[in-house]
């Protein structure tokens, strides 16, 4: 069957998106599979379409599309945009192969869930955001010849992003600033400088299977965008980095403040030369130096009745049988004042330490 060519505008009028789609629906029902659309900014071209005969492939060649070209496109759809496309290329891509020969605007490949998106130039901000991988289908791939704008691959949940950084040596970061914020799954391969990555991801070295994947993928990608000549330049794998989310088990914990104090703070503390502080931490009721008050025994009125000794809850009171004198042992006495309370002769006085 022949190619269906549609010019979506005339000298005086632009065809509405709805009218263009009605025409495409009719042509698909007639059995057309190949379309060449000379568009005039109509949105969502090739959105959620399938051929009349099952397993037949739909092919679109599009000039000058509007936003969301290839959005929600299905498996067995191939789209080639001649030139650049504006934002949301391949939004929610569900299996299509989408090629943009020029640049793509913001949020390219946003939420792509399967299929392949090939961009022959740069992509704008938030590209690759929320890509995901449903194991029932093949993982989505998103190939970009040059660089991505800031916030790229935000909240990425799965799939593969490849940013080739071609002709981008002057850029500080081929992923833009604040890339990979909230990324929890998937993998990104990037060639060139990277700066401002979110803390939830880490950079790893390429393994053999990564290199194999890139080599095969690049061959196909460069063929699609007619740049096969640069394959050699792009397959110097030392220039590449692999970015993956940090495993939550690997996430490093902050050092405890006590360790910081031991390693970085003043050995004797900042008050070391001003106060005599042993750095012990006292309990609310503790013997020895921690006591707020301590009992002092005076022999004058003592009748040696031993009531204090028998009532001391800490068994801290010691009686010297030779001299018949009493004292409260520092290492046991907590300063509760029970000895002073029970003494019939007020022999024990509580002294503030």
């Amino acid at each position, binding site marked *: 069957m022949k190619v269906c060519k549609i010019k979506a505008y005339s000298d005086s009028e632009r065809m509405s998106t709805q009218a263009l789609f009605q025409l495409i629906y009719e042509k698909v029902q007639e059995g057309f599979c190949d379309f060449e659309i000379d568009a005039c900014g109509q949105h969502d071209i090739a959105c959620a379409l399938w051929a009349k005969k099952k397993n037949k492939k739909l092919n679109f060649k599009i000039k000058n599309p509007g936003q969301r070209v290839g959005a929600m496109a299905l498996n067995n759809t191939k789209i080639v945009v001649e030139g650049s496309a504006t934002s949301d290329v391949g939004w929610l891509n569900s299996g299509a192969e989408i090629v943009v020969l020029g640049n793509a605007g913001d949020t390219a490949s946003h939420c792509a869930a399967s299929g392949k998106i090939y961009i022959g130039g740069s992509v704008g901000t938030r590209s690759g955001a929320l890509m995901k991988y449903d194991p029932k289908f093949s993982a989505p791939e998103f190939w970009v010849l040059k660089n991505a704008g800031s916030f790229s691959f*935000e*909240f990425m949940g799965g799939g593969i992003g490849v940013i080739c950084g071609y002709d981008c040596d002057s850029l500080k970061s081929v992923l833009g600033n*604040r890339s990979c*914020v*909230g990324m929890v799954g998937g993998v990104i391969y990037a060639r060139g400088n990277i700066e401002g990555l*979110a803390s*939830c991801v880490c950079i790893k070295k390429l393994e053999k299977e990564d290199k194999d994947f890139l080599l095969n993928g690049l061959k196909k990608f460069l063929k699609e965008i007619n740049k096969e000549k640069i394959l050699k330049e792009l397959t110097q794998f030392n220039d590449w980095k692999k970015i993956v989310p940090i495993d939550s088990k690997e996430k490093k914990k*902050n*050092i*405890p*403040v*006590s360790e*910081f*104090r031991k390693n*970085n*703070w*003043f050995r004797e*503390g*900042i*008050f*070391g*030369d*001003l*106060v*005599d*502080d*042993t*750095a*012990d*931490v*006292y*309990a*609310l*009721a503790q013997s020895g*130096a*921690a*006591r*707020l*008050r301590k009992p002092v025994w005076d022999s004058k009125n003592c009748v040696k009745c031993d009531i204090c000794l028998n*009532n001391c*809850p*800490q068994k801290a009171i010691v009686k010297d049988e030779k001299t018949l004198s009493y004292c409260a042992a520092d290492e046991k006495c*907590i*300063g*509760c*004042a*029970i000895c*002073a*309370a*029970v003494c019939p002769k007020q022999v024990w006085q509580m002294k503030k*330490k």
Partner: protein
Amino acid sequence: MAAVKINELHKCDLPWIIEYDESKCIQCGKCTAACSFNAIKPAVVERKKSNSIFEKNKCEKVLIIKQNISLDNYCTGCGMCANVCPNDAIKAVRNKDDKYSVAYRAKKADSLKKGGRSNLNTEGRTLDKIKIGRISQMTDPSLDATRHTFEIKTPFGRVLSADKLNFEVKNGKVTPTATLPPNSWIYPVIFGDMSIGAVSWRMWEAMAIATAYLNEVMGIPIRMCTGEGGIPTSLLKSRYVKYMILQIASGHFGWNRIIEAMPDMTDDPAGILIKIGQGAKPGDGGLLMASKVARYVQEIRGVPKADLLSPPTHQGLYSIEESVQKMFLSMNAAFKFRVPVAIKVAASATSVSVYNNLLRDPYNIVGGFFLDGLAGGTGAAHEISLNHTGHPITSKLRDCYLAAVHQGRQGEIPLFAGGGLGQTGSFAADVFKLICLGANGVFCGRTILEIAGCIGNDIGKCNSCNTGKCPAGIATQDKCLVSRLDVDTVAQNLVNYILATDFELKKLMAPVGCSTLPIGRSDALITVDKHISNRLEIQYAC
């Protein structure tokens, strides 16, 4: 038994009554040992052995725990006895019918002094009647607090308006033609300003460690204001001084040591804060009771052990113009015009005039205006000042901000607000709301103490910072009590609290759609109170 007479102090006159259950007490003595106020004591009392009328005179002596009936050693409700009791045998219960404040004045012919907070709270809290009501949904994208990145920073230092910034292009680089006022980007929460003396050395060091940790490990550029009680020389000469805002108040305590350390300082301090007044007790100077003037405090401050009353004003300053000339110029000169110099005043009916005057400062040397509201805390104050003087922070902050807005000069002198933030447990929300009303940031003291373990509250519990008997080891210089405080735990808790606050700030910034601080974005706020809506010029909602 002694006869009880009516004109004596009785247990029922005291603000807290000890509830003691003899049947549960094992007489371990821990409660009396732990009580820093000496408000309870063991005592021997007589008990009838039997109720039989034939054995009427058979009594026995038993040991119990009793409350001291005294104006000086009385229970403040701190709860340490209940905390240490292994058997739940003792606790302090609030006495609604107490006459302590009458009795104290009647017996002592002296004003009552308190520490901590005002306990009157008749004015209610404006901030709790404000909600963040402008949520980005279809209007503009809201953010993800957990995963997006935020810049929670605010300028500290004089910001020049665009027309006063003169630049030229030199060797291909944009270069200012004149020296610009010093300015730095700091976290919008400042620890402070509590002096060495008002708080214990361990408490002060824990704040300093938490500040250093947050800066150096977490990358949060928080600053700590030293309060005016000197700074340890070791700290002055270390790199950590760059996180410290040095305070100078009317007592100028500790400044000779700062000046002497200058030749050996490797880094500039973060700023200077000239304290003119304090929200908790406006019109009063600092007050440090003799019980807290420990030997090292005497040394740093250059004073003997005595009640230290700083003058209510900086002597030699009689007008706003004069204070600009003397304090601001000198403090700017002290660090060679490299360090922002800010001023702290108690919120007052006159604050806007002061702010307007400072905005006209021709030398561009006013680096910040700190406004302290009446719900702020204090180490010590006369209760009459604490409960009856001052001005709520919210409307005064708003007035100052709007005064600047009406001149097109908002943001030129950064505004910092404080006083009772976190009072009802929502510190981050308080910070956020004040920022939306025009604050560049906040400073906080009492929340920090509560994080550290302070057990006081706004309805009369403890609030004894003035006595030097702080049971938590925070507002005392008694070595036994200070040693109850674990520096590492306090510093860790402070760090954790700021990390939690940082996240909570994001949880409020995100739905408003701001990745930077929404200073003056009062459109983000609504209130269900018509008067607050009118007064603060924010949207009324119902």
